[in-house]
């Protein structure tokens, strides 16, 4: 019975492809389409690339783009590095590890809005953190309302929430590395650092690539903490593009501009992801 596998393939892939089409391709297509229209005097009119051209001279957009890039430049390396460090600790067979594993996993179980509300209570001027700092004679600091702190507070919250999630993928990747390779290197006299740099990390590359791409995507689209804690302020220091687009579309009813911003964001992400794929998926030189 040599039946063609294609019907089965289609059947099994259909739910995933349908989801991809409905929840990914359709919104992107819609955003592209809507970004070519604008509303003037209550009438929806075709605007061509006007929305994009206006963004070129739009001070608010460029400021917001700078904030988004700076935010991502800090948060992504930080999250991936911390997630990797956690993952390396996670796989060690040390006494009491079960307890620490449980601790690491707690942030995953808390929904982002709930986490944000809890962090708000911690970071308020009269909050827990300032209380603790006050005991040693520091502060009080305005973590959420000072232009010098606000973005870093958001980074801290998003990192706290994010790293254990990425850690799980990296733990999976680490456990896929055959223990014999490390074992052999250890017998050859390689130091732990050498084993990390020369064996673990190169073999972890596919997992790292996935984590990096997925993490960057999520952080470029981060919205909830900004929406709930700072509203883009102070001094626009937390006004990432997602928030700028949200405000434009849903607060000011300027959907054309909002969609143009979203499309720029998607384009930017595609470029960054493409670069990452090139950099990380090329085979290690030593192996050739």
């Amino acid at each position, binding site marked *: 019975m040599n039946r063609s596998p294609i019907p089965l393939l289609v059947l099994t892939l259909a739910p995933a492809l349908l989801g991809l089409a409905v929840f990914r391709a359709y919104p992107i297509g819609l955003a592209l389409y809507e970004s070519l229209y604008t509303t003037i005097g209550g009438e929806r009119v075709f605007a061509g690339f006007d929305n994009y051209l206006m963004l070129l001279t739009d001070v608010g957009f460029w400021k917001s783009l700078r904030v988004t890039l700076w935010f991502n430049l800090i948060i992504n390396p930080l999250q991936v590095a911390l997630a990797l460090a956690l993952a390396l600790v996670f796989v060690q067979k040390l006494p009491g590890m079960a307890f620490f594993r449980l601790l690491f996993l707690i942030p995953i179980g808390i929904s982002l809005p709930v986490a944000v509300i809890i962090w708000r209570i911690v970071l308020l001027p009269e909050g827990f953190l300032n209380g603790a700092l006050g005991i040693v004679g520091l502060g009080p600091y305005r973590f959420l309302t000072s232009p010098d702190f606000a973005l870093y507070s958001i980074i801290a919250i998003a990192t706290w929430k994010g790293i254990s999630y990425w850690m799980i993928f990296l733990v999976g990747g680490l456990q896929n590395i055959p223990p014999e390779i490390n074992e052999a290197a250890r017998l050859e006299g390689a130091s732990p650092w050498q084993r990390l740099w020369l064996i673990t990390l190169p073999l972890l590359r596919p997992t790292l690539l996935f984590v990096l791409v997925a993490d960057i995507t999520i952080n470029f689209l981060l919205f909830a903490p900004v929406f709930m804690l700072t509203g883009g302020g102070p001094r626009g220091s937390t006004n990432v593009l997602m928030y700028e687009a949200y405000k434009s579309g849903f*607060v000011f009813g300027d959907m054309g501009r909002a969609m143009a911003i979203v499309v720029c964001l998607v384009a930017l992400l595609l470029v960054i992801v493409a670069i990452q794929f090139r950099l990380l998926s090329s085979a290690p030189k030593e192996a050739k």
Partner: protein
Amino acid sequence: MTRLPMLTTALALGLTATAHAETTLTVLMIEGLDKGAMEAVAAQYMREHTDVKVEIQSLPWNQFFQVSEMRLKSKDAAVDLIYTDAPVVASYAANGYILPFDAAIADDAKAKLVAPSVATGTYDGKLYSLPMNSSAQVLYYNADLLKAAGVTPPKGLTRDSITKPDAIAQLATGDRWTFEQVAEAAKAVSGDEGGKGKPWGFAFEQFAELYQLQPLGASLGSELISTDAKTADGYLNGDAWTKAATWWSDLFNKANVSPRSLGFGEAAQMFTNGQLAMFVGGTWNVPAVAKSSINFGIAPHPKFADGKAATPTGSWYLSVTKASPDTAAATDFAKYAALSDEGTDVWFKTLNQLPTTNRLLDQINADPAFDAFPANVMRLSAWESRNTAAPRPVTVAFSQLQDAFRTAFTDIANGVAVDEALGTAVDAYNEAAARLNRK
């Protein structure tokens, strides 16, 4: 076959209902007391117009703007009249959601209503919305806290005060405190403790909001934006607003006498708890303040020493939607509610908010029923609404202006330099105005 008779009865009932009420008008508005007042007006109207049925539909405050905008945008024919917040009149008009009233009604409105209220309902030279009521702000002070700090409290209305019309005029013209006095008194009360140990000195009820703070610049003679609404450059970042914003900045960054943000209703709560010595807030706080054990007084809204008195104003309007199937009937109801003696009487008696008709304002001024506290606060408000009210600017980009303003004044309170914050707000407004005024 028990269904058939029921159906016939239902049909018959339906027919009688339509025979009685030929037109059904739906008013979409916010939940709460306003809805009750509109129901009272509608009941009165239906007694006089038996062929019209007026239904009031309401939405909670936090959904009102988004849902009503959606329904207007989708040309929902089930909404004939829309309760309209003063600042969105221009945007509704520019987007073609609402219809202008004819010249006869506009003239009637000009004759019967106070000018700032008509101005806010007017866009592009046409009257689009009729004001239902107005609002006023006053300075609440805790006499005991001020005296304990060695400050003589301002003259104002107190629990036992009886205030004749000429006394109100004297209070508003001769005895009005300046913002400089307010800041000094606040410093005396709170030291530089920043609300720890000692009470806070002073706060505005609506932190950093345009409605609340517009009088700062208006007192120094400046508008927020140009008359053609195209730019805020030279206005919001001009000398007057820079001075006003510096005074605001000093409250937080130099004197440290005012809390850096306040939630809804928090100022009144802190005041009635004795944690706040003075606040500028709406007259809607009078019942709560009067019920407290605080030895309070109510003084006119402050002004700058070298400026003129200016006070916040404006509240809700009523507009006829373009999608209404019977705009003539809807217009007639709007006219009844906002301009007729019967309609405005019922509205005022039910809601007890500052009216916009000269007739009712005259009545508040002359009627001895308004001599005693707390009715004399209404008399003070009536005086302000005729003499010092500074309406919010009419612009299609009002939400952007409001947002830019709020951001700037929040940032300034948080230590951002005044020029930088105001400059950013001007850029944001100009950008939006340029986009929305494309033709």
